[in-house]
């Protein structure tokens, strides 16, 4: 394949924008930092220079109005992407996302198409602390009317972005700075129909099911390698689209393995990992379960800044391995 280059996750996102902006005149992008490549890693480099500052708009520090403007532009036939360099900043913008974008189709009987894509970046670590590290994907997954996308691979970073923007529904697209250096090959871009995208099995296994999304999928994959060496065969699921969530594959896998570890980079209570366990509690007959399910998540505390505590705070491969081991041992 002569055109198949090795990309990293960050530049794959950029390739998605490049594709969208060149193929679709109705696509435009707005957000803070778009004229300054630094803010969003290498994920948007020079797009303003190529496609012009009319279509790649750096904005005032007004998250709410900018997000609302994205919603309004989508109602008027455009396909806007509103970029927030940190999900934390989106706390100002939730009316536009939750009261407006998520509800306009339903409230108007399907006649309004608020097809805006809101890109929120999880940008934790680096001693930045509680207001610059949040991963609020579980919040968005709680809101009916939104589609919530968390790419975990280089190809998904590009192709799920394309699918999100081309979808007529509002999408919260969440990428993770900790994945930007992930390498992978990129075949030609695909126009996937977001409505048909969902969880995939990224490793097959028989002893235990690991369910993850976004960066956590990396943890799960790497943990599964360690575990395999110990003779524990993991089935690893990457959720990809966390809302609306299609639980079928999770249920099927856990029914087979009888064990579940749900890994999530957000908080524990009422989070995505809770939902995964709830699906199992609801749908996998207890008789098939060989052990209690386990969650690997952040502790229920804000992010610390001190490097001494950051080490404790974020989940590691070891945490996943330990959880899986205890689950199997517990059998």
């Amino acid at each position, binding site marked *: 394949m002569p055109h198949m280059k090795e990309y990293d996750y960050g530049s794959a996102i950029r390739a998605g924008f490049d594709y969208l902006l060149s193929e679709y005149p109705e696509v435009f992008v707005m957000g803070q930092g778009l004229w300054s490549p630094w803010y969003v890693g290498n994920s948007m480099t020079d797009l303003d220079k190529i496609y012009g500052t009319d279509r790649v708009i750096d904005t005032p520090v007004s998250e709410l109005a900018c997000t609302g*403007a994205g919603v309004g*532009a989508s109602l*008027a036939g*455009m396909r806007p992407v509103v970029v927030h360099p940190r999900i934390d900043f989106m706390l100002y913008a939730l009316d536009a996302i939750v009261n407006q974008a998520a509800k306009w189709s339903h409230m108007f009987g399907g006649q309004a198409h608020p097809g805006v894509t809101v890109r929120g970046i999880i940008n934790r670590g680096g001693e930045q602390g509680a207001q610059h590290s949040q991963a609020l994907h579980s919040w968005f997954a709680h809101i009916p009317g939104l589609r919530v996308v968390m790419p975990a691979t280089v190809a998904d970073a590009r192709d799920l972005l394309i699918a999100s923007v081309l979808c007529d529904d509002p999408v919260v697209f969440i990428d993770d700075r900790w994945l930007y250096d992930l390498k992978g090959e990129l075949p030609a871009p695909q126009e996937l129909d977001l409505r048909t995208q969902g969880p995939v099995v990224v490793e097959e296994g028989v002893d235990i099911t690991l369910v993850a999304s976004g960066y956590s999928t990396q943890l799960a994959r790497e943990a599964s390698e360690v575990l395999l060496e110990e003779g524990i065969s993991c089935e690893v699921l990457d959720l990809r689209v966390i809302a609306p969530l299609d639980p079928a594959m999770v249920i099927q896998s856990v029914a087979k393995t009888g064990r579940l570890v749900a890994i999530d980079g957000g908080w524990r209570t009422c989070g995505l990992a809770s939902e995964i366990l709830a699906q199992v509690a609801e749908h996998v007959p207890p008789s098939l379960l060989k052990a209690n399910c386990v969650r690997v998540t952040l502790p229920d505390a804000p992010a610390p800044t001190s490097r001494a505590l950051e080490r404790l705070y974020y989940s590691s491969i070891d945490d996943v391995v330990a959880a899986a081991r205890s689950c199997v041992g517990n059998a």
Partner: protein
Amino acid sequence: MENERDIGSMLGDLKDPGAYQTPLEISGRDPGLLVDLLRTMMLSRMVEEHLADQRREGTIGGPVHLGIGQEAIAAGVSQFLRSSDRVFGAHRSHYHALALGTDFKALFAEILGKETGLSKGMGGSMHLWDEPRGFYGSVPIVGGTVPLAVGAALAAKLQASDAISVSYLGDGACEEGVVHESLNLARVLDAPTVFVVENNLFSSHMHISLRQPSDSTARFAVAHEIPFEVVDGNDVLAVADAAGRLIEQARSGGGPGFLEAVTYRWLGHVDWRADIDVGVARSESDLKQWRLRDPIARLRAALEAVGQWSLEEDKELERELSESIEAAWSQAMDDPWPSDEALLKHVYSSEGGA
């Protein structure tokens, strides 16, 4: 609690209930147009009076926020709008849509929660949609649609169309931060948005003097360097003239505009009662005076004075409107409810629910 405070006034007699009660000055205006405006306002008035009655009777199950007394604003603004424009409303928006020509039978059906409604019965009084007429939606979160209007205007610019956006908002909405962000954004992006502030001096039970240091919201246009006009909102011609200038400016690439129209609602914040406003008694004398500043009566009187309108024509119009309102209402009452599937099928418009 005091009902009003002493604050600086920039509105002057524009907010004086006793001022501006005389017939409008219409010399040199096209009589046909004037009668159209009269008709638009009367339709609005009578539709909403009907709604007030039905709400009182309990036929309408949800809240209705009526704009009786404020009809001149939407009537005047809409004169310059095209169906390709994008108009956004809020909680009190029946008359914003009606002034664009929205079918009142579909409005009734919507308010009753029927499948034939403007929003297919999914929205009710506070969530109206009529895209074919350029009505891009109204919702009750105060300030919620204001940035949407800016975005739709930005879209028009990117689409190289000469469409503009109109954002209707109230004096209360001006206290939401998002409105200020939106003014700045519209200005910086030169997005062709006309912000129409219906300053009726109240946000539910609270007089503006209890919420802001001054009575005119045009202060915010000044701050954001947006051209503005402040007019008697009960003078449909004053509204139209100012709106015409601001809309023309926006349409021709001059960026956003801001129209403050001073008015008063004859009924309380929500539903049919005039005497109380969300639990707080209103000033009877103010109300009485404002009713004399009736935008309809002032235009009617002017037309009558120059022989362009007569009592008979008025009665005839009223009868005609009344009949079609009654007919539309009973039709809407007979219309079907949304099917059970509607609850889930409209969650994502891409699922083809519409």
